[in-house]
C-alpha cells in the first residue's frame, strides 16, 4: 500500500495521546490507593490532559487531509453498525470530549465527593471521567486497529497482532511522554511512569517482532492464476490496459526500492525500542531533557513504524497491475 502521511500522523498522534491519558489516569488511580504520592493535580492531570488534547486535535486535523471531501466528514458517523472507520469517527470525538472534561475537572480542582467506595475510598468526578476515558481510549485503539485488521485479504494486517501493536505502541509513546511531562510537573511520579513506559515498550517489542516474524512468512492466497482464473503455472501480464498511471497504480504501491523498506524497518526497530529503553532507564529519577529525547526518538520511530506498516501490506489487486504497455 502507499503510505499516506495523513493517516501516519493521525494514528501515531492519537496513539500517543491515548497512552498519555491512560498514564495520567493510571497515576491517579495508584495515588487514590495511596500507592503513589499525590501530585499537583492541577498541573499534572490538568495540563497533562490538555497536552493529550492538543495531540488529539493535531491527529484529527491530519486525518482531514486524507479525505477528498473533508467538508462532508460528518457523514462518516452513519455506518457504525458495519464500519470500523465509522466507529472510530464516533469514538475519537467522544474521547476528546472526555479528556477535555477530565482535564477541566482537575484544572478547576473540582473534587466533590460523589460517593464512597467500601474501604473508605472517596469517588470524585475525575475518577468517573477517568474510568470512562480509559474505556474510550481502549475502544479507540481497537477501532483504529480494526480498520486495518478487518481487511481479510490484506493478510499482513489481518491479525490480532495488529490490534495488540496499536495498543502497546501507542501506550509506550504515551507513557514515555507522560514520564517526560512528569519530570516538569510532578517529579515524584517520574520513576513510576518511566518504569511503566519501559515495561510497555518491552511488551511492544515482543508483539511487533511477532508480527514482523509472521508477516515475513506469509504466503499470498491470491495468485495470478486465481486472479484471472486460468490454470497454468506460467502467466505473465503483457499490459495492464493503459500506459500512464491510474488510481490503482498510485494507491496500492509504495514505489520504493526494497533497500528503503529494509532501512525504514531497521530504523524503527532501533528508534522505537532500544534507544528509548536506554534513555528511560538512565532517567528513572528525573532528567527532563533525556526523557524528552526518549519521547521524540520513539515518536519518530513510530512514524517510520507506521510507514512500514502500510508499505509492507501487499494488496491482491496489485496482481492486475504489473506491466505497462
Amino acid at each position, binding site marked *: 500500500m502507499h503510505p499516506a502521511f495523513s493517516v501516519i500522523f493521525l494514528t501515531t498522534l492519537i496513539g500517543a495521546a491515548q497512552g498519555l491519558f491512560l498514564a495520567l489516569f493510571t497515576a491517579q488511580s495508584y495515588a487514590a490507593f495511596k500507592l503513589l504520592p499525590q501530585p499537583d493535580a492541577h498541573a499534572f492531570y490538568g495540563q497533562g490532559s490538555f497536552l493529550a488534547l492538543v495531540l488529539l486535535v493535531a491527529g484529527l486535523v491530519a486525518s482531514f487531509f486524507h479525505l477528498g471531501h473533508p467538508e462532508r466528514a460528518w457523514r462518516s458517523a452513519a455506518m457504525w453498525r458495519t464500519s470500523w472507520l465509522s466507529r472510530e469517527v464516533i469514538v475519537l470525538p467522544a474521547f476528546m470530549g472526555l479528556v477535555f472534561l477530565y482535564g477541566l475537572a482537575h484544572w478547576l480542582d473540582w473534587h466533590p465527593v460523589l460517593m464512597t467506595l467500601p474501604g473508605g475510598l472517596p469517588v470524585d468526578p475525575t475518577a468517573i471521567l477517568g474510568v470512562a476515558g480509559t474505556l474510550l481510549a481502549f475502544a479507540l485503539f481497537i477501532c483504529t486497529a480494526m480498520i486495518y485488521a478487518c481487511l481479510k485479504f490484506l493478510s499482513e494486517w489481518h491479525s490480532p497482532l495488529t490490534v495488540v501493536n496499536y495498543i502497546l505502541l501507542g501506550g509506550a509513546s504515551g507513557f514515555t511522554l507522560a514520564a517526560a511531562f512528569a519530570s516538569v510537573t510532578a517529579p515524584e511520579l517520574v520513576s513510576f511512569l518511566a518504569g511503566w513506559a519501559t515495561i510497555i515498550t518491552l511488551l511492544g517489542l515482543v508483539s511487533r517482532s511477532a508480527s514482523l516474524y509472521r508477516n515475513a512468512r506469509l504466503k499470498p492466497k491470491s495468485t495470478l492464476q486465481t486472479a484471472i482464473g486460468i490454470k497454468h503455472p506460467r502467466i505473465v501480464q*503483457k499490459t495492464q490496459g493503459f500506459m500512464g498511471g491510474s488510481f490503482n497504480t498510485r494507491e496500492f504501491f509504495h514505489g520504493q526500492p526494497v533497500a528503503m523498506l529494509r532501512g525504514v524497518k531497521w530504523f524503527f526497530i532501533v528508534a522505537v525500542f532500544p534507544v528509548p529503553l536506554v534513555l528511560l532507564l538512565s532517567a528513572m529519577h528525573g532528567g527532563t531533557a533525556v526523557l524528552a529525547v526518549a519521547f521524540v526518538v520513539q515518536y519518530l520511530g513510530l512514524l517510520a513504524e507506521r510507514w512500514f506498516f502500510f508499505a509492507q501490506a501487499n494488496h491482491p*489487486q496489485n496482481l492486475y497491475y504489473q506491466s505497462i504497455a
Partner: protein
Amino acid sequence: MTQLALVIDLNVCVGCQACVTSCKEWNTSGSAGPMVDQNPYGTDPTGTFFNRVQTFEVGEFPNTETVHFPKSCLHCEDPPCVPVCPTGASYKRKEDGIVLVNYDKCIGCKYCSWACPYGARELDEQQQVMKKCTLCVDRIYDMTMTEDDRKPSCVKACPTSARLFGDIHDPESAVSLAIRESGGYPLMPEWGTHPANHYLPRRKTRIKIHEDELERADNPLKVDRQLPKPAMNEPTLDDVTTW
C-alpha cells in the same frame, strides 16, 4: 431476487478495447460523469475508467496463448467494499444487486477501494469521490430506449459478443445458461466475495482419435495375411490410381 451481471467470454474477446472507450463515452456524459482525465496529452496521462482490458500471456514460447481480460466491478453478491464504507455512500441495491456509490455522500476516504480485492474502484481525481462500474444503471432502465439498447454500453459495443448481460439468479437467462454450460467461473473465489460477474474460459474443440480408427484392426487383408502388408508410408491406392 435479481442479480444483474456481466458474463465475459475470454474465448471470444480479442482485446480491441471497444468496451473501454464505449464505457468511458457513455459514463462520462451520463449520470456517473464526468470521468475526467488529467494530462490527457501530457507525458503522464491518467484518468478514471470503469472498465479496463488487460492482456496476459499464458504458457512458454512457443506454446503461448494471449488472453485478453476485461476487468470491471464484479458486483459481488457479498461485496466487502460496502460494509466498510463509513458514510453509506457505497451500497448494494436490493432490487437488482448492482453495487453503486452515491457521489453526494462519498467523502473520498478511499477505504472501500482498500476493501475490494479486485482493484475495481477508482477515485476520481477531479471530483474526489469513488467511482466504479454502475452496470449502466442509467441505461438499462431507460424506457425511452428500445429494448435492444437497454444494455450496458460495453455489451452494446463489443464486436465479438464477448460480453453477455443478464440476471444470474434467473436459471433460464442467457447468462445463467452460459455459466452453467460453458464453465463460467468467478475471480479470486478464495475471498468469498461471490462475484456476480463471471468469466467463460478458453475453449478448444478437440476430438480423441483412437489408433484403430485410423487403421482397421479387422481388415480382412491383414487378417488373412494374403498380401504383404504395405508400410505406413507407402502410397495408398488413392494416391496411385484414378478411379
